[in-house]
């Protein structure tokens, strides 16, 4: 096998040195009756060329760049500067383990420290962790963190938070006896703050909103924060579309931000791996889940970085840890770090503005042929379109033209009728928008 650096002679010599005749002796501790007495039902070793062919075939059976894609809904199609893959492909980055040995892991550690800093700059928070699994688990863990901080056991969640994020929260909450109340949205697409006022109780640890929310609408974070704080609850803001931070005011009024960083140079990859991240105020840092990198010095006074505050973590605290997370999404966070570095202070703004412009144009075009909902509040790069036709049928139809239509909302929001969620990014071409707007008209 080409991955195994042993010759038959090497293997023999090693057995001899160990003092055994056959490798089977090493497996003797496994009771014979349980051992597998046949070969695995898996094909024999394949050539690299054949593997490549097989996956090429699978790839060509899967729609990708050849289609104009109007899907967003938590996973966004942005241009990925080529530097990202070039740099993360260095073996020193992608074949390294968690940086537990700082003397030979400063590359990873410094990059994470830079990631944490950039996330703080963008979100307006004071500290950020090294990453969580994804946006959904980050939001969920942020809610659990709020419960630890406040000692309260309930959460109030906007119905305009990504439905799958809410599902994940439900899965985790259920077993911790945490009660989740949902708050509806208004005609503007924004949270119904009157309903929110009512939903918050003495046991509400936090309010969880998403902004831009699942419909692309930018929430009035300050107003929501005011209500939550007045009632002694924290505000958790989820961000699924990180590029919005280039032009949308950061949620500085929040206590915890739970962000999905996929938009920052991470391939769509059929849903993962992405990278969540939790950012918060300094005062909450000891309740934060996940790894943190901190700056310190060596004995010669040189700056260096280490994993720190790990008494929060499972490998030290076990069942009392702030989370069970161990392996995180470090390499994806590195992708995001490189993306943020490439675009930087001016580029992220310009990029976000391009997203705004494409979407504004699309809203105008779609508005001519269908109904665009939620017009009363600012939006970023998504919008909801109501059509006469069922969105699935519509999507089937325009798929012929190599257009992948918006995300049908009926499953999660039956109250919106024949509605679907469309997304435009800097990659969406005008001609595709024009074609899609025409397609929607039927």
């Amino acid at each position, binding site marked *: *096998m080409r*991955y*195994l650096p*042993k010759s038959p002679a090497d293997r023999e*010599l090693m057995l001899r040195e*160990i003092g055994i005749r056959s490798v089977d002796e*090493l497996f003797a501790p*496994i009771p014979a009756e349980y051992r597998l007495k046949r*070969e*695995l*039902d898996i094909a024999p070793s394949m050539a690299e060329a054949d593997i490549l062919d097989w*996956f090429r075939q*699978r*790839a060509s*059976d899967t*729609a990708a760049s050849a289609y104009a*894609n109007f899907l967003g809904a938590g996973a966004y199609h942005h241009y990925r500067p080529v530097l990202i*893959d070039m*740099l993360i*492909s260095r073996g020193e980055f*992608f*074949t*390294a*383990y968690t940086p537990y040995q700082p*003397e030979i892991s400063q*590359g*990873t550690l410094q*990059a994470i420290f*830079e990631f*944490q800093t950039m996330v*703080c700059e963008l979100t307006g928070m004071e500290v950020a962790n090294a*990453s969580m*699994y994804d946006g959904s688990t980050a939001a969920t863990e942020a809610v659990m963190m709020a419960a630890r901080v406040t000692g309260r056991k309930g959460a109030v969640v906007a119905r305009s938070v990504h439905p799958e994020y809410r599902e994940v929260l439900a*899965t985790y909450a259920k*077993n911790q006896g945490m009660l989740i109340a949902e708050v509806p949205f208004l005609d503007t697409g924004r949270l119904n703050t009157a309903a929110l006022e009512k939903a918050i109780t003495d046991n509400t640890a936090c309010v969880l909103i998403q902004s831009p929310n699942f419909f692309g609408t*930018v929430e*009035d974070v300050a107003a929501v924060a005011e209500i939550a704080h007045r009632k002694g609850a924290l505000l958790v803001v989820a961000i699924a579309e990180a590029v919005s931070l280039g032009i949308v*005011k950061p949620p500085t009024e929040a206590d915890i931000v739970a962000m999905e960083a996929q938009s920052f140079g991470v391939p769509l*990859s059929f849903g*993962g791996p992405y990278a969540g991240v939790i950012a918060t105020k300094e005062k909450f840092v000891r309740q934060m889940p996940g790894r943190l990198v901190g700056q*310190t010095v*060596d004995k010669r006074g*040189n700056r260096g*970085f*280490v994993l*720190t505050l790990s008494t929060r*973590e499972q490998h030290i605290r076990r069942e009392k840890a702030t989370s*069970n997370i161990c*392996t*995180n*999404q470090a390499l994806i966070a590195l992708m995001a770090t490189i993306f*943020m570095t*490439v675009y930087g*202070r001016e*580029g992220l*703004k310009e*990029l976000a*503005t*391009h997203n705004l412009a494409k979407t*504004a144009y699309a809203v105008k075009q779609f508005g001519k042929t269908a109904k665009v909902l939620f017009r009363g509040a600012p939006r970023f790069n998504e919008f909801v379109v109501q059509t006469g036709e069922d969105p699935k049928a519509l999507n089937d139809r325009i798929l012929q033209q190599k257009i992948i239509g918006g995300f049908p909302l009926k499953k999660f929001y039956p109250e919106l009728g024949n509605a679907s969620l469309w997304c435009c990014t800097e990659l969406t071409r005008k001609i595709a928008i024009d074609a899609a707007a025409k397609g929607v008209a039927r």
Partner: protein
Amino acid sequence: MSGKIKKATTHVIQNEGLIFEKSSRGKKGYKLPQLDVPDVNPAKLLGNAARADLGNMPEVSEIEIIRHFTRISTWNYGVDTGLYPLGSCTMKYNPRINEIVARLDGLANAHPYQPEKVSQGALLILQALRKALMEICGMEAITLQPAAGAHGELTGILLARAYLQSKGNPRKRILIPDSAHGTNPATAAIAGYEVENLKSNARGMVDIPSLEAQMNEDIAALMVTNPNTLGVFEQEIHKVADIVHRKGGLVYMDGANMNALVGKVRPGDFGIDVMHLNLHKTFSTPHGGGGPGSGPVACKKILEPFLPVPVVVTKKDGTLGFDYDRPQSIGRVRAFYGNFGMLVRALAYIMANGRDGLLQTTEDAVVNANYIRKKLEGVYELPYSTPSMHEVVFSDHKQTAKGIKTGDIAKRLIDYGFHPYTVSFPMIVHAALMIEPTESESLEELDLFIDAMKSIAEECESEPETVLNAPHTTRIARLDETRAARQPVLRWKPQA
């Protein structure tokens, strides 16, 4: 190149500041295409939700970015650098073909919500991997959704909980051996269970009498690691399972150490009900400096109804699709379907090895660990003499006389050109040296490691200061971790 240290030497290496320290106004690393739609005024569109500026985000050019990340990468050690004997971590070779196939356009640029009919390739990959992993585990159902081992543990324990709940009572506690990884108890807590500790016996295995005494109808499940964190196969695993099952509990297996078993024995065949795999260990997906991983959970038929939604199924028309209609499901554990890119890599690894390669891999992994054990036995103390599988755990007992701890030996290994082993885990060994070479190491590399370990043991006698102050050859020396924790500096700020 000192005579004693054969594997490494020192060489000039670049310093490099933080990216923020290289920034200055007006440098650019990007250019956007010309807008093909009318430009907009964000202030007008967003009103007071518009952002003023992006604070201290860096402004640098392309070459500075390339140099920055290239330079800092050279401060790292990876599997590509050499032996990475972290016990429990299975730091094996990350095949390059995996990286290529995961980046193919159709796979890397597929949106999770695109219609199933134009996602058949991606779905087939999921299906093929599910099938292979079930076969390897001897299980009847599987979910690929969990993002890592700990996430898999949670999923698995929630499956158990849902199952028990469906029988009327989720129960209260989870039994966990004292040798377990920290994620096990942390998971149990998140799943809403109390943790009950289970002592290991003198051979380092689950103590059957204790288990019998502790097992009762309040216990939802036992979380067992096999081979356990000592690298020891739980020889009485079938008895263990029987005891738990007899009281209506379930047996969860932490599959972090599956690299010792693939093709030789299947957990499903020795009484395990549910388990996770770490694709970033056993199945070669890269660790990436801490992640991403992937932690599929395989289980017996009885737990299948509770799997997270969605589940990949073959539809009536023969095409593949997602089934969301699973009323007993525990729900989602994350958005979308899992760390798909890692699943692609794991499947490519399985295809490259095939059944023959997978078996040889297991054998080589176990031979490598036993070779190291044989050569270092006597040089370092072996707290448990039970046979080792894929890893071997020593302690620093012989060296403590001179005040040298496992962490010091670890640091000194760096000077010898190696990444250290896992330090001070598992906790049932006082000051452990936990060594897992994996199958990816050549005889040459192993011999160099053994030489280094022997040489360090000698230094512990002859020049303990050298060991205590190691490493000596790195660009920075040992770092002040206390200071890092006491006065946390968790982000860069511009100098006032």
